[in-house]
């Protein structure tokens, strides 16, 4: 097949797209009304929400720890580890939020946008790799402190299972809004 033929096919497809009677009115209205956000805007908003939430959780967590049936030294250690974990998560989410906020779809070049997205996605995975061990350390400390209390131990285990489920669900939601840059399809790296 010659290029001429391919071009001809392309022009035919143009006609098809042009004659497509799909109604853009509702989409235009949605855009003007500003009721719907783009996937990127939703992702940015979610990072912002999580960065704020982690700061709030430090204080609420501190308030709740006094109810934990743990020895005082373990309680302080847990509280400290919890605060470090949440502040790290908050900083990481804020970094991702600020990096993604830099994207200007209307004026940036495609290579710039794709490199920012790729970088953020990579960092998201790296941050997860830092936060998961930190979380496991906290759980380990709590388990160590509540070995003698079977009810507390049971609660911790239930909490861990619930946490994993919620974490996995949130992780999937985050990843859904990212461009997938897997090794096999890492084709946006122009530079």
């Amino acid at each position, binding site marked *: *097949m010659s290029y001429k033929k391919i071009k001809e096919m392309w022009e035919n497809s143009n006609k098809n797209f042009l004659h497509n009677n799909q109604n853009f009115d509702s989409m235009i209205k949605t855009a003007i009304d500003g009721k719907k956000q783009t996937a990127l805007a939703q992702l940015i908003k979610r990072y912002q929400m999580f960065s704020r939430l982690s700061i709030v959780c430090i204080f609420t967590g501190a308030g709740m720890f006094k109810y934990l049936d743990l020895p005082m030294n373990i309680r302080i250690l847990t509280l400290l580890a919890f605060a470090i974990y949440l502040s790290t998560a908050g900083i990481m989410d804020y970094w991702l939020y600020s990096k993604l906020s830099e994207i200007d779809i*209307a004026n940036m070049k495609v290579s710039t946008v794709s490199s920012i997205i790729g970088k953020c996605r990579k960092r998201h995975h790296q941050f997860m790799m830092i936060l998961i061990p930190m979380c496991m350390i906290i759980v380990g400390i709590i388990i160590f402190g509540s070995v003698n209390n079977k009810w507390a131990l049971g609660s911790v285990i239930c909490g861990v299972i619930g946490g994993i489920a919620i974490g996995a669900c949130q992780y999937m939601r985050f990843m859904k809004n990212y461009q997938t840059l897997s090794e096999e399809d890492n084709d946006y790296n122009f530079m």
Partner: protein
Amino acid sequence: MTPSYAEYRLHGITYVLKWLRYALISLVSSEPPLYNPVHGSRFTIGSIEARFIEIINDNKALINKICYFYANSTDDFKDLQQDAIINIWKGMSSYNGESKTTTWIYRICLNTCVSTWRKNKKFKSHSPLTHSIDIIDDPTEKDEQMEQLHYLINCLNSSEKMLIMMWLDEMSYDEIADVCGLNRNTVATKIRRIKEKLYKLSQTLI
């Protein structure tokens, strides 16, 4: 605090320069700039809306086409269309008409697809969306040709797809380089390679 005479003068000069730039753009460009640096926008909110609707209607085929080639499913296609339209609306305030509307639309649509495109392996196949999306209104159109073209384009990776789409739309190498953020020579080399790849792929169709 009252501004000094020098500040007034500077402000006046800036004002005149901005107006001159604005007038020059209006003269050179076939389309009037939406953004007026002096009064924010030359158009009222209503006229920005009118211009936006006009741009969307004029470039409906282009938006459809880009989103279509980057979508993996009907839902993806609709989401991409909606996101692209939202981004065009958001970008209206910064669009000054310096670049061609099609180039601007291309940039926004490609950036939208790059930043939101989701790869779902379940849907990833070389079979195009011709059957899942009601693209062709006229049943007499060459459906087979559409499928062949989709097959060929979907065999390329995303950056190749982007370059060949712009090349097929007869955009100049400079325009392509401007949208992609690549060197002009790199664009030329890449397009040559893609054309060779397309040619080889097309041989498998025969």
